[in-house]
């Protein structure tokens, strides 16, 4: 009865081997490497870069372990740090030119760490766990995205799009913005119907409700809920892409940019401790807006500082001095910009930035510039929330998809502006709501503390279990070891981020997983005490303990899943490890340990005794037995005898 079919043993062996394969990369540690990433958005990193790096290294007689393109950067791994530093200097000089200005260099060449595990392991996805910042040091930011602002912007664009359309159709209704809605008021029923048709055709994502207002017809348009969700998702996505672009130039290894919850973004930069600098870099915002200049007399007075800013206008400082009054309505914004490149001014000596608009931006700029030839428009650059007019050219002719901003002071300036515009506008402003900087020494310290906790706790359990349950204790600790192996393997396989709370969860899960073994071992002792034959006792012990193990693990799992569902950051990392640990413990404590027992005892037909420690048979327990208590029921002898009979029946089946 204590035999496993061959496939179960095969499964055990496979599980252990797979566990080893996926756990081992964590033990190799990290090796020095040089990382080459793009410092500018124009720089393309790819297989060409790999060939170039290989050539440069072999020219300098440096032998790397490997050079590979991973994600967005190229890594070259080296045997020791001396070679690494030498290689860094060679590559920096070779790729960027010997005396390149560090700020203008196309490539970021930085010292870094990569996994030391052999390459073939990486190819089967056996990679070490990613270490959280509390274990490796670095900065962590949590950014709150202001989605309301993103929607506001979207509504403002919708408003101007609607006005443009109405003008185009020569309907000329009154268009106003009311909160999150755009209200279009027609004076006649026919035009209203005509207008509604045009509006629903042009803006399928807007919900229109029509209400009569006296003789007028009022059409109220709001974005459909699906469109709202889409707009918010797009805003977050664009912000994340922008952040990724800004962080890329830092050359930090494995930066993390993740969405958290509905409207938050987590940014983690390992190896950097300077929060102020990092915050500056990722908080740098540059958006572009094109406005029409207000050239009325009031506006000129306001610009000269002698009058108030007219209603519906905004005042921005001009880069060359003074103020400029523009109409608040945005003609096109950075959202509609698909590319920005520096270039030479064809007519005059000087630099320009060539802009390419997307189709929507192009059609707007085409119409607006056509209507306003001879007037001036202003290009306003918003950086860190402050607007500045870069240039306010006069519209010479109708503009098209491509047009240029002239008046740059130098090539370098054109270069910078193009980069800023291209590295993308944030779709919505963001605010730092959490930031943590962890020093590298603290990280190493935390790893040591976590490992010591697990190791000593495991050792204590091992000693106790072996002393108390003898061979069954050895089997229990072996299966607990397999549990640890499989847990680490699964965590590595799904590439979780390991944090200190995660290590604590490993320790706690192991401490709790031993429960299943204790349940089984106690049950076997109990069966032996009741007089069962050893083979029957083993079989009954495992079978009867199983229901209890399942029940108790499910309740623990419920707690773990709740933590996972509602936790974030450290709590979530704790919960993932905890839940996975419970699942692996069911495998190891029941299936695996049974397999070991079967292997040892299953073949012995006439098993006289099992090594499970002393089984005390001093008093066969009788439930409710001879406890002297007056109101106690005297149990008929049938009680225990029947129980044994039932059990044997159960075993005979």
């Amino acid at each position, binding site marked *: 009865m204590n035999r496993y079919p061959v496939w179960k043993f095969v499964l055990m062996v496979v599980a252990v081997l797979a566990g080893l394969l996926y756990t081992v990369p964590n033990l190799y540690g990290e090796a020095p490497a040089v990382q080459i990433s793009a410092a500018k958005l124009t720089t393309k990193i790819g297989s060409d870069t790999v060939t170039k790096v290989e050539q440069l290294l072999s020219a300098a007689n440096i032998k790397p372990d490997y050079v590979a393109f991973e994600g967005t950067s190229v890594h070259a791994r080296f045997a020791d740090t001396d070679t690494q530093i030498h290689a860094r200097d060679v590559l920096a000089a070779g790729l960027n030119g010997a005396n390149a200005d560090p700020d203008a260099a196309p490539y970021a060449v930085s010292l870094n760490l990569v996994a030391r595990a052999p390459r073939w392991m990486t190819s089967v996805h056996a990679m070490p766990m990613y270490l959280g910042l509390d274990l490796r040091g670095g900065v962590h930011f949590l950014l709150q995205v202001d989605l309301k602002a993103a929607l506001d912007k979207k509504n403002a664009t919708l408003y101007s799009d609607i006005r443009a359309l109405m003008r185009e159709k020569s309907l000329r209704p009154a268009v106003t913005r009311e909160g999150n809605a755009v209200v279009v008021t027609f004076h006649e029923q026919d035009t209203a119907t005509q207008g509604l048709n045009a509006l629903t055709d042009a803006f399928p994502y807007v919900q229109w409700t029509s209400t009569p207002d006296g003789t007028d017809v009022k059409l109220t348009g709001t974005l459909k809920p699906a469109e709202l969700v889409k707009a918010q998702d797009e805003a977050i996505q664009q912000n994340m892409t922008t952040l990724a672009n800004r962080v890329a130039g830092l050359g930090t290894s494995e930066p993390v940019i993740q969405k958290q919850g509905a409207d938050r973004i987590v940014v983690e930069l390992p190896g950097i401790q*300077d929060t102020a600098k990092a915050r500056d870099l990722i908080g740098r915002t540059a958006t572009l807006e094109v406005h029409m200049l207000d050239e009325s007399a009031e506006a000129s007075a306001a610009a000269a500082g002698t009058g108030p800013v007219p209603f519906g206008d905004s005042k921005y400082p001009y880069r060359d001095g003074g103020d400029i009054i523009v109409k608040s309505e945005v003609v096109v914004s950075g959202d509609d910009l698909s590319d920005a490149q520096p270039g030479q001014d064809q007519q005059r000596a000087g630099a320009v930035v060539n802009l390419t608009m997307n189709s929507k931006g192009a059609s707007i700029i085409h119409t607006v510039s056509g209507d306003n030839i001879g007037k001036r428009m202003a290009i306003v650059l918003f950086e860190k929330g402050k607007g500045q007019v870069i240039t306010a050219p006069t519209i010479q002719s109708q503009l098209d998809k491509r047009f240029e901003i002239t008046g740059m002071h130098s090539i370098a300036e054109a270069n910078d502006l193009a980069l800023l515009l291209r590295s993308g506008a944030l779709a919505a402003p963001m605010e730092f709501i959490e930031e943590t900087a962890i020093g590298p020494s603290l990280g190493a310290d935390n790893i040591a503390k976590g490992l010591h906790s697990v190791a000593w706790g495991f050792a204590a359990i091992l000693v106790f279990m072996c002393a108390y349950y003898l061979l069954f204790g050895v089997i229990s600790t072996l299966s607990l070891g397999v549990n640890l192996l499989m847990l680490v393997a699964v965590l590595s396989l799904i590439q979780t981020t390991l944090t200190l709370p995660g290590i604590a969860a490993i320790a706690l899960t192991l401490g709790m997983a031993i429960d299943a073994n204790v349940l089984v071992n106690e049950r076997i002792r109990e069966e032996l005490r009741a007089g069962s034959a050893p083979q029957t006792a083993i079989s009954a012990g495992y079978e009867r303990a199983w229901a209890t193990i399942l029940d108790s693990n499910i309740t623990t799992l419920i707690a773990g899943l709740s933590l996972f569902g509602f936790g974030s950051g450290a709590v979530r990392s704790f919960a993932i490890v905890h839940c996975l640990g419970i699942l692996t413990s069911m495998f190891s404590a029941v299936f695996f340990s049974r397999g070991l027992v079967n292997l040892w005892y299953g073949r012995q037909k006439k098993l006289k005794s099992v090594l499970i420690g002393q089984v005390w048979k001093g008093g066969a327990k009788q439930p409710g037995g001879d406890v002297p208590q007056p109101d106690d029921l005297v149990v008929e002898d049938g009680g225990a005898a029947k129980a044994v009979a039932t059990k044997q029946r159960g075993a005979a089946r």
Partner: protein
Amino acid sequence: MEFFRIRRDIPFMRHALVFNIVSALTFLAAVFFLVTRGLNFSIEFTGGTAVEATYAQTANLEHLRGVVSHLGYGDVQVQNYGTSHDVIIRVPTKAGIDQKQVPSHVFEALCKAESGTVGTKTETTAKGEVVTRPSCVDAAKAEPVVLKRSELVGPSVGDELKRDGAYAMISVVVGIMLYLAFRFEWKFSIAAIVANLHDVVIILGFFAFFQWEFGLSVLAGVLAVLGYSVNESVVIFDRIRETFRRFRKLTTMQVIDHAITSTISRTIITHFCTQMMVLSMLIFGGPTLHYFAMALTIGICFGIYSSVFVAAAIAMWLGVKREDLVHTGGKGEIDPNDPNAGAVV
């Protein structure tokens, strides 16, 4: 080796009232401290700034308090963290102060007090990774104080964490109650939850009484303990059900006594093993895991007490009966009055 040589069932339930009075008193004391003292929430919950620094020499806390109080941040806490060389400075959020500047200002003040100047240091670690960090260098080019960690949490995050913590707690309670009601019976599900929530309150009571810092990891620990103690009650309930099935003549009280007695050895050994692991975290885990391990220790100790003495007693008082658990006519049931029972053909 066998620790538990129990000749007969221990009449636990006869003393159920006493046990429950003891636990009710502990519970009330915990509630009292929670109400009067409240929890000492970490900045993860309250929002604020924490700066952790290491001194080359033993840190003089009194002197540091003076240094930091000049910054005008209000009620600033300066404490040792782990060793006597490590200090943690906690600054609450205060209107009119730009939180983002706090870590660098505090570090500057600490550095100045050691007559050093703040700069940025870029160094390559022995392993070959480049790190840049703010540093404090004095005239002798030594670093008298090193910034180990700084943490800044906006006030809005904390409220959300508290809310999520409460949701997590509620979903654990509801989930476990549903499962137990489905797997056993509603009386057991109420008994288990009452007993184990009382553990949770007692853990929180300890944290309130000693004003230990209640952080996110402690919350995780508390919820993990909740799951763990319920699993304790489940083992006993499982045995109660089994005893009801096997011994038909026993009263409910005797069944419970028998169930507890026959699982007591497993209860103690399991908790002992888990506690060894937790103790290891308490000893080796350092200050970050200290209160986590503390919460677990209290939870494990009271978990044994409440599942053994409280949960079963509540189930008993709720009037759990054989019929609740043993469904007549179900498979494997044997009627003792049936003359053919147990006969194998």
